[in-house]
């Protein structure tokens, strides 16, 4: 049974058909590269999975059950986490504070509760070790490299025990050396059985790590095939429209 299944999902904004009859399924531990030109419908699709938008037509199923979400918080409750392109980090806070932002561990009785710094440092440290990142929980995010910042944003998804992680252009703004670090972080997630949707413009990343590539063009799914059966040239053709549909 697939983890998440989209069945003929469409999203219309007035006369504009941002998405048309897109079906997609995600298996546990699978990395799917989602590609497409600007305006192809990638972000609309991601926002539907993330609970920002409701589809105009079609349905979502999570582990065989219908999924109807009205707010992003509900997606989180179902185990769907997003790593935003800007990472959504507070530079003035420590790595641990960012990891636990909005889900702080507290101790105390009744209304008298204080932040449990020790527990959060310990827990964050364990997650960074698990991700094989050298990020230190007490460091300020302001002082971190691009790769470490990614690790902090990805560590957040581990707090929630996410089943699906949507990553929006994780390698767009960082150096070549740090791209390798980020791809390693993604592998660590995948090895824990998490399904990952990788939205990216970078062909080498998708072909380096994804199991499957999905291409959107003008709101339609034009390809959904195993990486091994495709090639960067074919995908480029599909994105631009030089190739109408994947063979």
């Amino acid at each position: 049974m697939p983890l998440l299944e989209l069945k003929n999902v469409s999203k219309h904004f007035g006369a504009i058909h941002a998405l048309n009859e897109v079906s997609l399924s995600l298996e546990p531990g699978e990395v799917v590269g989602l590609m497409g030109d600007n305006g192809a419908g990638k972000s609309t699709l991601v926002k539907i999975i993330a609970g920002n938008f409701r589809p105009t037509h079609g349905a979502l199923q999570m582990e065989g059950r219908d999924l109807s979400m009205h707010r992003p918080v509900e997606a989180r409750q179902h185990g769907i986490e997003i790593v935003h392109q800007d990472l959504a980090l507070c530079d003035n806070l420590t790595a641990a504070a960012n990891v636990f932002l909005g889900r702080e561990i507290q101790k105390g009785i009744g209304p008298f509760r204080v932040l449990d710094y020790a527990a959060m440092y310990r827990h964050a440290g364990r997650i960074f070790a698990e991700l094989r990142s050298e990020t230190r929980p007490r460091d300020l995010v302001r002082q971190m490299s691009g790769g470490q910042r990614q690790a902090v944003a990805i560590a957040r998804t581990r707090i929630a025990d996410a089943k699906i992680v949507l990553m929006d252009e994780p390698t767009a703004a960082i150096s070549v050396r740090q791209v390798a670090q980020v791809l390693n972080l993604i592998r660590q997630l995948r090895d824990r059985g998490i399904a990952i949707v990788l939205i990216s413009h970078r062909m080498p990343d998708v072909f380096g790590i994804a199991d499957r590539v999905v291409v959107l063009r003008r709101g339609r799914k034009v390809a959904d095939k195993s990486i091994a059966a495709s090639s960067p040239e074919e995908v480029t053709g599909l994105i631009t429209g030089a190739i109408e549909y994947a063979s």
Partner: protein
Amino acid sequence: MEIQFDDEIKRARFPILSWLTSRQAFWVLLAVCFACIFLSFATNSFATSNNIFNVARNFTFVAVIALGMTIVIITGGIDLSVGSVLCLCSMILAVVMHAGYSIEVGIAASLGTALLIGAINGVLIAYLEIPPFVVTLGMLSIARSLAMVASNNTVVFQFGPDHDKLLFLGGGAWLFGIANPVIYMLALALLTGFVLHFTRFGRYVFAIGGNEHAAIVTGVPVRRTKVAVYMISALSAGIAGVIETGWLGAVTTNLGAGMELQVIAAAVIGGANLAGGIGTAFGALIGSALIEVIRNSLGLLGISAFWQGTFVGTFIIVAVAFDRIRNFRFPT
């Protein structure tokens, strides 16, 4: 890279020293200590217990509001209405007590007014997304006008049956001869520091100032937190108003005029960053203390009080410039 490496070594060898020198409040504290030592030698009158008592009490009113202002500034906001809110709260207290009600009723009415004004500020800022500068500028005008309406623009100096209790509240000194306002200030500073560093609310205050968008997407209740922040700011002005009324023994409608700028100056000198995300309760006290020491010393040294603005203004600029220069030398 090399500078960073050196910095790293220094940090590892002298963690406390490096932590201290990275704090603006530490340098301002040094400046205050230096000024005090200098004044003790340069004048006969500074280091007298009487003068120290006065200096300590005088800056508490600004300091108490600076605590609330620091929280607002950490969220990246500003509250220009505090001077007028102080006046309105003092006036409500005075009018209610003058009408024959007890001090408890007077204080409840006064602080209730503060919370209501803060809530209005907060809702307009958080839910209608009007810039804090505009909302609180409007409230600056409204609150002072309401104070005039409440008192018919008269001076109130008789506070009914609990007159003496009120004067003791603001003017007394029941603990080791420390002025009451100083005790309130220290208690409130400890409370503010605790809330900022050990509660979830405090964490949210810093998160909103650091990256509001991140706070929203991680599920931080940004709007509710902002409303609370402006309520705290107005409440701090209300508390300062109650104490100041007790100390002065009279309320006029120009009480606290221009005070918002002194309060903001104190917070900024103490290390609060107007761009948001940075500030401490201790810094608010130290910044307020520095302004008062400057004011006091000019008087004692026989320099015209007209120079006060020049000195305070210079300190604001120097404090912020100092921060820039330090960051420039050690990029992180």
